[in-house]
């Protein structure tokens, strides 16, 4: 017994000495957290599961970085862009002197290859042809007019397919694109199933491609990967390498928020973004004076989907009664303190961008669901609901009314939001309970309309800052919120005409005159507000914690519009800030 204890103690001492004797590292290493597939699952092909992860933001560049707050496109691999007056040709001029990590020059062919893979993956039926007249110009010829966000999707795409690696495959995709074009313009306008099959076959090949090391044009290149750490080192021949004063990036495996908080409190990490409640946040900021909190909008609104296929939520009066009886801000505080309040409307137009898209005259036509529990009770009583002995509502048929709120197990802010809603419903004398489902089951339940109310995102603008993405989600054929809520394909408009969602979405996508765009947004927003497939609770902010002045300094102020680009992946913003030298080492650069 004693011997055992003694030898154990000896071992510990030895290990401790070992840890102290390590040589100090002179390199400037920036630490953040993220996810990737651990070896042996990891490989260097970003298109297949196993190759994607947080490292993508540092290894591959986009054409432009979209800044939704100012509607700007910051040049990355692309320098400038131009859309022809008939909106059928998009020309992008590329940066010169860019090298891939294997030191092959970057050219227009690489951009073409990347977009071709995106096309084979299912996006981009609008493209007729991609031309590369010279090494630094890419021309996209379109089959129809470029839609509201089509060019932004191309700008936002990471250029990940070097032609000298993917060329053989992408040349074949180009042939498919040509064939597709002949069929589309030919007599049979129907999309050919054969094309789909061919694309799928090629994608199979792409997914099976497993190089060991990722090759990009980004500021950092692959160094090593383990189960706990992903190491990236500065690409010395990168086009912005001179400005970069950080030698290495170390990505720590993101486990869960409670571990990330420990990292933050202990100063083991320089930048991270866990969704954090108010008191933990204040504690972190208090214990680490150098930590700052930046709260850019996520360009998405959290709230609840109503299942319009299930009684009583199938009755529009009931949905409205709930909208009147729920105090949004009480749910917001407990679910996500660092978020933005939203208005009493539920238009699907993001609150912080609502001035850009909605006029006061549009809002005047809509119901404002000001908090008014009296009205809720009045509506419920009109519908035939009554209150039982225990003080809770009974359905008109005399059976107890009980609503089930579906939550996503593991997304704690959603679950807390559900709790907030249950508390409010009980206050309204409505019985409610929460059921949480693990990821795969949650989506399946929503798609099969097996729920009453479910926590989710409604408005979802991403980096495009355009209402089209949200209205597609709400009303598009087979889209996420539409199939969950069970909204019909068309509804009655307030002037008595029929509002066909398919038609309006098409107008919104193709319209150019501001008047028509606003008018269409107004119509769709009206439908969202009056038919209530979704009750919006708050606009989510990202919570970015940066440690300024410990290992690195220069993080922009929270008001800087560059942060708004975070909604397309905040690590891309970090990569941009580092590679332009805005965020730099605290030490003078050698």
């Amino acid at each position, binding site marked *: 017994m004693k011997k055992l204890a003694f030898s154990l103690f000896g071992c510990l001492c030895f290990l401790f000495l070992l840890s102290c004797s390590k040589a100090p590292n002179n390199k400037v290493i920036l630490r953040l957290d993220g996810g990737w597939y651990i070896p042996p699952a990891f490989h260097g092909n970003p298109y297949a599961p196993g190759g994607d992860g947080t490292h993508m933001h540092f290894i591959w560049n986009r054409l432009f970085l979209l800044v939704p707050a100012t509607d700007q496109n910051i040049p990355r691999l692309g320098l400038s862009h131009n859309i022809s007056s008939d909106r059928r040709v998009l020309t992008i001029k590329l940066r010169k002197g860019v090298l891939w990590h294997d030191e092959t020059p970057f050219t227009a062919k690489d951009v073409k290859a990347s977009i071709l893979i995106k096309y084979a993956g299912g996006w981009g039926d609008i493209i007729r042809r991609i031309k590369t007249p010279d090494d630094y110009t890419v021309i996209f010829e379109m089959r129809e007019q470029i839609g509201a966000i089509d060019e932004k999707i191309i700008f936002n795409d990471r250029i990940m397919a070097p032609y000298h690696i993917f060329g053989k495959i992408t040349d074949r995709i180009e042939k498919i694109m040509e064939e597709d074009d002949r069929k589309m313009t030919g007599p049979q306008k129907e999309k050919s199933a054969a094309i789909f099959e061919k694309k799928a076959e090629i994608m199979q090949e792409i997914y099976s491609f497993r190089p060991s090391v990722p090759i990009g044009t980004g500021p950092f290149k692959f160094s090593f990967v383990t189960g706990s750490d992903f190491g990236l080192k500065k690409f010395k021949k990168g086009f912005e390498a001179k400005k970069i004063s950080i030698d290495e990036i170390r990505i720590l495996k993101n486990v869960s928020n409670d571990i990330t908080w420990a990292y933050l409190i202990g100063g083991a990490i320089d930048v991270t973004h866990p969704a954090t409640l108010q008191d933990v946040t204040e504690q972190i900021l208090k214990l680490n004076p150098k930590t700052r909190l930046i709260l850019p909008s996520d360009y998405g609104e959290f709230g609840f989907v109503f299942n319009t296929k299930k009684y009583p939520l199938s009755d529009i009066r009931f949905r409205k009664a709930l909208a009147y009886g729920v105090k949004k801000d*009480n749910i917001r505080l407990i679910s996500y303190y660092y978020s933005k309040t939203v208005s009493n409307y539920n238009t699907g137009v993001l609150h912080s961008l609502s001035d850009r898209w909605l006029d006061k005259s549009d809002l005047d036509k809509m119901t404002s669901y000001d908090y008014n529990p009296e009205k809720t009770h009045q509506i419920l009583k009109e519908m035939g609901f009554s209150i039982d002995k225990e003080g809770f509502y009974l359905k008109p048929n005399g059976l107890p009314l009980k609503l089930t709120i579906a939550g996503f197990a593991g997304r704690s802010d959603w679950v807390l939001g559900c709790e*907030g809603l249950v508390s409010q419903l009980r206050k309204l004398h409505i019985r409610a309970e929460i059921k949480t*489902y693990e990821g795969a089951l949650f989506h399946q339940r929503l798609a099969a309309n097996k729920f009453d109310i479910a926590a989710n995102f409604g408005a979802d603008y991403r980096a495009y800052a355009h209402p089209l993405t949200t209205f597609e989600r709400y009303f598009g054929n087979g889209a996420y919120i539409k199939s969950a809520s069970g909204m019909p394909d068309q509804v009655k408009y307030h002037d008595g005409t029929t509002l066909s969602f398919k038609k309006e979405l098409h107008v919104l996508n193709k319209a150019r005159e501001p008047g028509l765009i606003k008018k269409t947004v107004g119509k769709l927003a009206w439908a969202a507000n009056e038919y209530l497939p979704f009750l919006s609770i708050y606009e989510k902010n990202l919570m970015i914690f940066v440690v300024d002045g410990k290992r690195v300094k220069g993080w922009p102020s929270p008001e800087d519009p560059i942060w708004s680009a975070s909604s397309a992946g905040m690590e891309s913003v970090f990569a941009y800030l580092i590679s332009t030298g805005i965020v730099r080492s605290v030490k003078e650069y050698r």
Partner: protein
Amino acid sequence: MKLIDSLTSRYKILTHNNRAFFGFLILILYFLMATIGPHLVSLDNIIDYAGRYQGISLQHWLGTDYAGRDTFSQIVHGSTDVMLIAFSTAFFATFMAIIIGIFSGLKGGRIDAFIMKIVDILLTLPQFPIMAIFAGIFTIKDSITFGILLACFSWAPLSRGIRSQVLSIKNKEFIEVCHIMNMSTFHIIFKELLPNMIPFISINFIHIAKNAIIASVGIMLLGIVPLSVTNWGMMINIATKQVGAIYVPHALPYLLSPIFFIVVFQFALINFASGVEELFDPRSRGR
């Protein structure tokens, strides 16, 4: 009369052993909390964000949680379900394990080998897919069914432990004597085998009961039963993973309360079990 006599004598043993009595008292308190507690303490569901993490006071005996709700009333209201789940799981699992373990151990030979193969197969059943399939088909309304479900996954290891004990006791002299004296199997099991295994069984009963409290969280997260914020296991889970109570000093009462109640519950059970052992095992009474 004889029955009453034997009962009172057994009761005396229980009170005579201080530790067992102490455990017994605490268990009574838990029982009262679970039965009449919810009628005495009202559960306030209304969220009051400004009143969150209040300290311990006369008004809030254990402070308030992250939404300003009284922690003590949550503990009391949660206790009913927690006790029911813990005891029903432990009861059913132990029951199954005893029957199968003893039967298999006593019979021996081919029957034993066959039963143990089945137990092996049950042990290999992947829990998650079963639970997930379950989640798609059923919803559970009451805590006892919930307990039975959990018991299905916890009896197999114990039955193997009991069987191996039966195997080693079976060959001891006194059992052989019983066989020679032509005593009934019933007598052998209840008078000779079981009393010998009581300490082992009771400690496993306690383990299963405690594990059930923690395991109920996983089942809630799968949506088989509604999420209950008053379930002690869930409270610990929320306090650590969502609220981050470890990092916020004034949130500690919310994290520590459910842990405290589980620790004391278990400690009481362990102490009570020591008295139960003496009840069944006259030989250790004198020590």
